[in-house]
Structures are given as structure tokens and as C-alpha cells.
């Protein structure tokens, strides 16, 4: 475009937004979308389920149907607020909600856009493709965090004071739990973002990993379990689990007896490596891949 008067033309080429700006745009775009699209049932399960169970337990206690002391398989056990809370953190959040949310959202970061044929709209913008993935990943993280963490909080306040537990005394554990779950969401999300970028049938791969590979391998001796996320997460669990013969109790018992849980440092390093590696590789893949859309 030349100006007839010789004055410099107004800047007409839009400036390509920086990576961070792109990430924040994608994040803003994806956040609400993630929270609402056809996932209500899911939200109810993940958020409401544990709270409902906590309320039921509280009701049982108030009706004197539940007391702290008891015997399981001839052993004395104490089940009080802290123990129940620990059980719920383990049974609901750590081994159910977090991996499942990670698999579902993580693998769908790109897959959903391909499935809904909307990826063209994103990839034809002047945004780096890596930023699309990172932005959507952050949206997932915030979205999942906003679902899971308040639910944990509610469960804590409902369950902790039961049967002689104390909110004040359990508070440090709550903080650790919240941090642990946030880390879990981040790591699982990153890992499955990679899986989603790598495989076509990413969801099945994710489910096999979470519900097939992890539970089996984590109790096997040897180095295999280092290829799971839950191994490293277990190293950060603050609760003493009740050794009650349930599967989780059993697993932890085995782990603790053999003192094979990694130390917190090893755990954090391992989780950090998975997070960085998963996300980095996923970005690399997304930048190189051609996405052919069905008509």
C-alpha cells in the first residue's frame, strides 16, 4: 500500500502476539468451554460424590451407627476423622478423581478440537501451536483444581471432626493433601496431554495406563513401578493409612513394610520430570503434526 502523499503508511501488519499472550488468550477461551461442555455428570461424580459420602458418614456417626474403636480381622483399629479423611483422599481423589480427570481432560486437549472440527479455527490464528496446547492445559489445570480442591475442603470439614478428630490438628495434613492433589492433577494432565498428542485412541490408552498398568505395577517389586505416576505420588501422601485389609490399606502396608516408598525429594523430582517431559514432548508433537480433519 503506498500513500499518495508520501507520508509513512500506518502499520497495517498486526503484531504477532507473544507466547505468553497467546497462552493467556487460549486459556481464556478454553476455560469456560471446559467447565461446561457435556461434563455435568462428571462434575457431579467427581465433586459431589465424595461430599455426599462424607455427609452419609457424618449422619451415621450422629446416629451412633459408627464408632471409633473396632476390630478388623482380630486387630484393633481406630477409625476416626483423620483416618476417614485419609481414606477418602486416597480412595476418591488420589486413585480415582485425579487420574480420571487427568486422562479425560488431558487426552482431550487436542482430541476434542479435532473431533469437533474446531482445531482449524485455532491453528489458523497467528498463535504458536505450542501456546494452544499450553493454554488449554492451564485451563484444564485451573478447571480441575476448581472442581477437586473445594470438594476436598468440604470433605475435610465434614469428616475431620468426626469421632474425636480435630480440624486444627488436621489442618497441616489438609494443606499437604491439597498440594498433593494439585501436583497430581498437573502431572497426570501433562502425561495424558502427551498421550493425547501421540495416539489416536488416546483415551483407551490412558484408561489402560491408569486402571490397568498403575495398580498392577505399583505393587510389583523391582523398577517397573518407577514408570507410574502413583508411585511418586505415594511418596508424598501424608496420611497413615488404616491397615484394614481393604485394597488400599493392603497396598500401603506392603509398600511401607518394604520401605520402598520413595522419599519426598525423589517423588518431587520424578513428578517434575514427568510434568516437564510430558508437556514438552506434547508441545513438540503438536507443533509438528498435521491434523487431517474429517469433512
Amino acid at each position: 500500500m503506498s500513500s499518495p502523499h508520501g507520508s509513512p503508511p500506518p502499520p497495517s501488519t498486526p503484531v504477532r502476539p507473544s507466547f505468553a499472550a497467546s497462552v493467556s488468550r487460549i486459556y481464556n477461551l478454553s476455560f469456560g468451554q471446559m467447565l461446561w461442555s457435556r461434563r455435568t455428570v462428571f462434575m457431579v461424580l467427581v465433586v459431589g460424590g465424595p461430599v455426599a459420602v462424607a455427609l452419609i458418614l457424618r449422619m451415621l456417626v450422629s446416629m451412633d451407627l459408627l464408632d471409633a474403636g473396632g476390630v478388623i480381622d482380630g486387630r484393633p483399629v481406630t477409625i476416626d476423622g483423620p483416618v476417614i479423611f485419609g481414606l477418602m483422599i486416597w480412595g476418591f481423589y488420589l486413585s480415582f478423581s485425579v487420574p480420571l480427570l487427568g486422562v479425560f481432560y488431558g487426552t482431550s486437549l487436542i482430541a476434542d478440537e479435532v473431533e469437533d472440527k474446531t482445531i482449524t479455527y485455532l491453528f489458523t490464528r497467528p498463535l504458536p501451536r505450542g501456546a494452544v496446547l499450553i493454554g488449554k492445559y492451564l485451563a484444564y489445570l485451573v478447571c480441575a483444581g476448581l472442581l477437586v480442591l473445594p470438594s476436598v475442603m468440604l470433605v475435610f470439614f465434614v469428616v475431620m471432626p468426626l469421632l474425636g478428630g480435630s480440624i486444627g490438628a488436621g489442618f497441616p495434613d489438609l494443606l499437604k493433601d491439597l498440594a498433593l492433589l494439585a501436583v497430581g492433577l498437573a502431572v497426570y494432565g501433562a502425561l495424558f496431554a502427551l498421550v493425547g498428542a501421540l495416539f489416536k485412541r488416546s483415551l483407551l490408552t490412558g484408561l489402560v495406563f491408569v486402571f490397568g498398568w498403575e495398580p498392577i505395577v505399583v505393587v510389583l517389586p523391582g523398577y517397573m513401578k518407577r514408570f507410574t505416576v502413583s508411585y511418586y505420588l505415594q511418596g508424598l501422601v501424608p496420611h497413615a493409612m488404616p491397615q484394614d485389609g481393604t485394597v488400599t490399606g493392603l497396598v500401603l502396608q506392603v509398600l511401607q513394610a518394604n520401605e520402598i516408598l520413595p522419599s519426598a525429594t525423589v517423588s518431587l523430582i520424578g513428578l517434575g520430570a514427568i510434568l516437564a517431559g510430558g508437556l514438552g514432548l506434547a508441545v513438540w508433537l503438536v507443533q509438528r503434526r498435521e491434523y487431517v480433519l474429517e469433512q
Partner: protein
Amino acid sequence: MSRRTRYVALASGGVLTVGLCSGLVAYLNRGIPRGVAADAPAELAFVPSDASAVAYADVRAVMASEFRERIRRIAPDGVGREQLERRLGLSIERDIDRVLVFWAPQAGEDGASGLALLSGRFDAARLETVARDGGAVVSEEGGARIVSIEVEDVGSLAMAFLQPGLVAVGDLAAVRSAAGRGAGEAGIHANEPMMRLLGRIDTGSTAWAVGRLTDSGLFGLVPERVSARLPPVTAFAVQGRVNGGLGVSLVIEGRDDQAARNLRDVVRGFVALAQMQSIGIPELQAILDSLETGGAGTAVTLSFHLPADALDFLLSMTSSADAS
């Protein structure tokens, strides 16, 4: 962001913030660490901060339990009980609810002296009269009446009515200091290691004891030659719960990880030995099967459960031993 998305984010952030704030407030006001918070005996307030061991028993719970019934069946109550009731108007079964005993070093003295705190319903006037008849002296300290008596070889024993329904019994110095222990004085709550041990006690335990061990060994309970060979132990917490049977769990703190590991090995060794010995005695086997050892870090845990019939068996063994 749409309006409902913003609402969800706000609600969720709100829950988190409110939760964290109220949790923090509760944490700062928690007073006693977890475990002992809910129904810790009020008598703990009279325990000085330098106490090295505290033991507690819920007499009422024991008396009301089936366990007690079984013991009574085998070993009937002695005559002393009747006498006590007639003279003092005091029935252990009826009038005493809880007993808390602690050991603390006495100023200017070697070793520790113990003090028992009994809570229940006491006829103070009658007790005092009886004591005076026996030659006791009454004094006052910190608003509490102290009845003391000199006993040969033992020293001065004393009894004080600290509060309505709370009696301290022990040597005079200890009772004095307990009576003088007013509000604001640093008590056991200021002793963090002890409070940590108390934190190991589950709520609802019928009886428990915690203690920190100094070089003087296990209060001389364990022969020196044995204790010398045991890995160094710094603290212990033991608790029992009576309900039908008897559940006991014990935590021992080793000096360091190495000591704890050694201790675990020793305990496992003992258990294994016992298990070998008990072959052919199913009742004993059941107890040993319920034995559980474990622990992590510096802690060693041991727990077992005596079911009701195992108790019968054990008691019948002891009574038959008595009889023979």
C-alpha cells in the same frame, strides 16, 4: 468468561478461601495436638512441663467392661475393698472415674517422684477426718487443703483436694507443687516432645501411658543387663482399649533410624520366637496372629488384640498357676 463460569470460579475459590482461613484459625487455636484434643483428661493441666511419663486409666470404662467381669469371675474381690468402703465411704468401682499418674523430677532431689490424680466423687470431710485420726496434718497451699502424714522409710505422703472431685495423692513435695500449680504456669502442654507422644494416643483409649526415657533406663523396670543390650530407646507410647477383648498398641521411638530398625528386628525376632513356641496352643496362636509390628522412621509399632476367649484362656492359665 461467561457469567455462570465466573460464578463457579467464585464459589469454588470462595470455598477454598473460607476453608483455608477457618482451618488456619482452628490450627492456631488447636491447644493440644491431634488425638488428645477431643477428650483429653482435664487433669493434664496439673502435670508439670518436665514430667517424664504420664499414665492414665479410665476406671469407669474398665469397671463397666466385660473384661472386668471376666477378671472378677476368676479372681473375686478381696476383703480390702469392703473395709475401704466402710471406713472412707469410698468405692473404687463406684466413686472413681479416672486415674492419671505422672512422674516428674523433684527440685533438689534425685530421680522422679510420682503423683496420682484421682477424679471421681469423694467425701472430702470424711476422708480428712479419717486421716487426722491416723495422725495426719492439714495445711493449705494455693487454696487447696493438703492432708499429709509421715510414714517411716517412705517419707511424707500427702493428699490434696485440688478441685471438687479431684484428689492428688503422692509425696508431700509433689502434692504441694501440684496444688501450687496455678493457672498460667507452664504445664505439660508446653512440653512439645511429650505432646507429640500424647498425640499418638487415640481418642477412646481406655488406658494409656507415654514417657520419655532418659539414661536412667526404663525406670528400672527392665534389668540393666537387658536394657544395655537393647537398641537405645528415647520414648514410648502404649495404649489399650477394652471392649469385649483387649486391644493394645505400643509405639517406641528409637534414637535414630538405625536404632529403630534394630529395634524392629528385635521385636520381629521375639514375635517369631513366640510364634514358634506357641505352636499347638491355638488360643496363644490367635493372640500372636493378631500381633502386628511395623513403623517407619524412628518409630517402632507393635499392636495386638486379645479376643475375649483368649483372655479367658490367659486368665485360666494364671489362675491355674496360682492354684498349683
